[in-house]
């Protein structure tokens, strides 16, 4: 038999390469729990949007598994001696998806855009930044009105995302429909409520870490349907798996579950001064009643019953595993007898109050468990289920006695407490106002040394956790389920999926 001719051999080789390329052309199909809002880092405001941004837009910094700040578009930083300027060294050779160069001028443009664009959601995060200087092509200097410890964490989130100045100027406030960033993937198409398709950006600075050619994000609101899509093989990855589905998934070898404790919390905000209602009910009026309320709670029970055990108990704005958790104020044990005694001392053995609860299933379950637990101590809790947007408005007006509220959390502890316990801050639904707390909160921002900050947070905890404007309950687990062929998944506590290193085996 004669040897195959060169033509045939060439054809065979070409065919093999084509097949190999096809096999290598991999798509990650990702089920989201909600449809993201606008994909413009300056205007964006939802948690789910940040999941897409993790593949679309790189940031100056990122956080790692331990919540430590690590470089991304920046390669390093340096604080000045007076801590009022931050000099950032930029990675060289980075380009945006439109081919434009990411340099110091682009960073200056972005920080200024975050600060000045109408409707910017980043303005507050960058409030202390007074100006940006371009030192050289790859160095920028941020000038601050006062030292600001949470700044690096802000730059590791949306405030640190860089978009192409050229595209941003051309598109104006429509930029969100055609975002041009510098992340590993670029936007191909978005059909509202249906899908967001991203394709690999070939000139990504860290392309060696990218092993997918395409990512399709599909918003599927119903957790059962999201799981059904994973099980039937139409999705490779789903976020926010229902806690009750975990047991069945564990026994299925086709899938893997990943869990991380959230950086946010679930808690009950108590109206202690937001409106007249605070004085009209014993819970808002008397700290002893609030202490009795907390003592009547069995947090382990809440985690077990309401969350199927998929939560860590906690009593502070950060989880006990967080470096900034105040160890001087551990999670109190349930003590119904003491709770009853406190109520007796306060002269209200059967205090009654209304617990406003958004209609999300987690909040509803927590409210019901809390209701039955505190009943043993003599509390009569009425649950008032209220649609989320309405409940927010009522909370803002002080038209509530107690409110089950979740916070998705920020990498820096400041993001979990400043706006909630600072006097008249936007999220101070409790109406809590105390000069010494405000002073401590401000000091926690201007102190950059972590060990000094820990001491300040311990002092804060000693005051705030006794006043109880918020009774912190649990920190849920972010639950992800994915095909067991997927590897390289990093579990970062912010609940966002980093696509770097992720691959299908």
């Amino acid at each position, binding site marked *: 038999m004669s040897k195959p001719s060169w033509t045939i051999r060439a054809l065979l080789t070409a065919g093999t390469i084509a097949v190999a390329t096809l096999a290598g052309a991999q798509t990650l199909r990702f089920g989201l729990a909600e*449809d993201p*809002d*606008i994909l413009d880092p300056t*205007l*964006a*405001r*939802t*948690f789910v949007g940040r999941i897409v941004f993790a593949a679309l837009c790189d940031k100056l910094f990122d956080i790692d598994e331990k919540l430590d700040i690590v470089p991304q578009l920046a390669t390093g930083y340096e604080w000045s001696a007076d801590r009022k300027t931050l000099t950032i060294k930029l990675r060289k050779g980075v380009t945006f998806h439109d081919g434009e160069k990411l340099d110091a001028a682009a960073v200056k443009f972005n920080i200024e855009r975050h600060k000045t664009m*109408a*409707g*910017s*959601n980043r*303005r*507050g*995060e960058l409030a202390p930044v007074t100006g940006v200087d371009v030192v050289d092509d790859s160095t920028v200097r941020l000038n601050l009105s006062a030292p600001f410890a949470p700044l690096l964490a802000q730059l590791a989130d949306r405030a640190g995302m860089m978009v192409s100045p050229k595209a941003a100027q051309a598109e104006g*406030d*429509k930029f*969100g*429909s055609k975002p041009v960033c510098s992340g590993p993937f670029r936007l191909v198409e978005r*059909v*509202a*409520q*249906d*899908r967001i398709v991203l394709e690999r950006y070939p000139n990504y600075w860290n392309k060696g870490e990218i092993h997918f050619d395409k990512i399709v994000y*599909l*918003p*599927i*609101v*119903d957790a*059962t*349907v999201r799981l*059904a*899509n994973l*099980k*039937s*093989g*139409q999705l490779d990855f789903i976020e926010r798996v229902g806690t009750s589905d975990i047991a069945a998934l564990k026994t299925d070898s086709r899938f893997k579950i990943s869990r991380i404790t959230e950086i946010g919390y679930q808690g009950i905000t108590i109206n202690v001064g937001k409106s007249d209602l605070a004085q009209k009910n014993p819970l808002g009026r008397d700290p002893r009643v609030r202490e009795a309320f907390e003592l009547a709670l069995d947090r382990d029970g809440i985690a077990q019953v309401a969350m199927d055990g998929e939560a860590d108990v906690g009593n502070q704005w950060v989880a006990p595993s967080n470096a900034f958790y105040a160890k001087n104020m551990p999670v109190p044990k349930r003590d119904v007898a003491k709770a009853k005694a406190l109520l007796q001392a306060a002269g209200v053995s059967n205090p009654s109050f209304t617990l406003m609860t958004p209609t999300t299933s987690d909040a509803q379950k927590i409210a019901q468990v809390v209701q039955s637990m505190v009943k043993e101590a003599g509390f009569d809790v009425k649950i008032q289920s209220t*649609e*989320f*947007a*309405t409940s*927010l*408005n009522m909370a*803002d007006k002080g038209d509530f006695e107690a409110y089950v509220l979740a*916070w*998705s959390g920020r990498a820096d502890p400041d993001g979990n407490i400043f*706006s909630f316990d600072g006097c008249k801050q*936007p*999220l101070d639904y409790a109406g809590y106002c105390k000069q010494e707390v405000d002073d401590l909160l401000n000091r926690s921002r201007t102190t950059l040394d972590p060990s000094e900050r820990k001491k300040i947070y311990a002092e804060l905890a000693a005051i705030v956790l006794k006043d109880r404007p918020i009774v912190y309950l649990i920190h849920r687990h972010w639950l992800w389920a994915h095909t067991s062929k997927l590897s390289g998944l990093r579990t970062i506590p912010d609940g966002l999926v980093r696509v770097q290193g992720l691959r299908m085996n």
Partner: protein
Amino acid sequence: MLNYLLHRLATIVPTLFFVSVLIFGLQQLLPGDPAMILAGEERDPTVIAHLHQKLHLDEPLPIRYLYWAGGVLKGDLGESVRIQKPVLDLIIEKLPVTLELALLAIVIALTIGITAGIVSAVAKDSAWDYAANVFALWGLSTPNFWLGIMLILLFSVTLGWLPASGYVSPFEDLKANLAAMIMPAFVLGNAIAAVLMRHTRSAMLQVLSADYVRTARAKGLDERVVVLKHALRNALTPVITLGALEFGTLLSGAVLTEQVFTIPGFGKLIVDAVFNRDYAVVQGVVLCTATAYITLNLLADMAYFLVNPRLRDSHA
């Protein structure tokens, strides 16, 4: 005829005006400041102030209505605050999806409903009749979302025959489109099939006992010809009218079905818009639906007019 048409068209203007005021007014009854929810988790006061200004939320209600109505008259339904896309574009994008779903559902409903109705009428009091009645009762009493989830578990998770949710355009891939649409269309058509079955059955029973049917049988015609050609034709008239009326029910039923099967149609658009307080989208979608209803009504009336000579004479 022309007079009648002009008269009808003239009544549309005040009707639409009334509808637009109603839509706008009802929307304001939704509790809560839309800026609060649109401002995101941080609820930065400057963002809230910006949204108030942008959406004219601080203006008195009549002025806000004029802003909106003025835009609508110029063909501008406003912009979704959540994703910053013109409402008209969203409607154009979503409407065909829901129309396809409704159309498939009505085809399924007619096929199942009429067939079952005929069978149960012809074989009255037989096992077939009882089976069809049980089916009708089941169809009427099964909630859409429950049936949807059950079908997903059976056909997608257990059998793996159909995709669990999602949507593919028929122009992109017809087969994938049908695979994605068959379950939601069945869920949606199922309840209507039950109604149609009941009506077909009673209409058929009535017609089958009519004199002309007896005559047809007496002539020695084949029973199939008697039932399908002579009886069914007469029995179908009220059923078709009912089917057309149920098309409206389909559009509202689509709200739930689209939510369960994650179909990016009209229903999902409006539900998400209500929860996100995306006023412009809610108003635009409802206005569009109302206009469609009014137009369909007008067309139906015109059809009656053409068919019924008595109406024609009285308006001559």
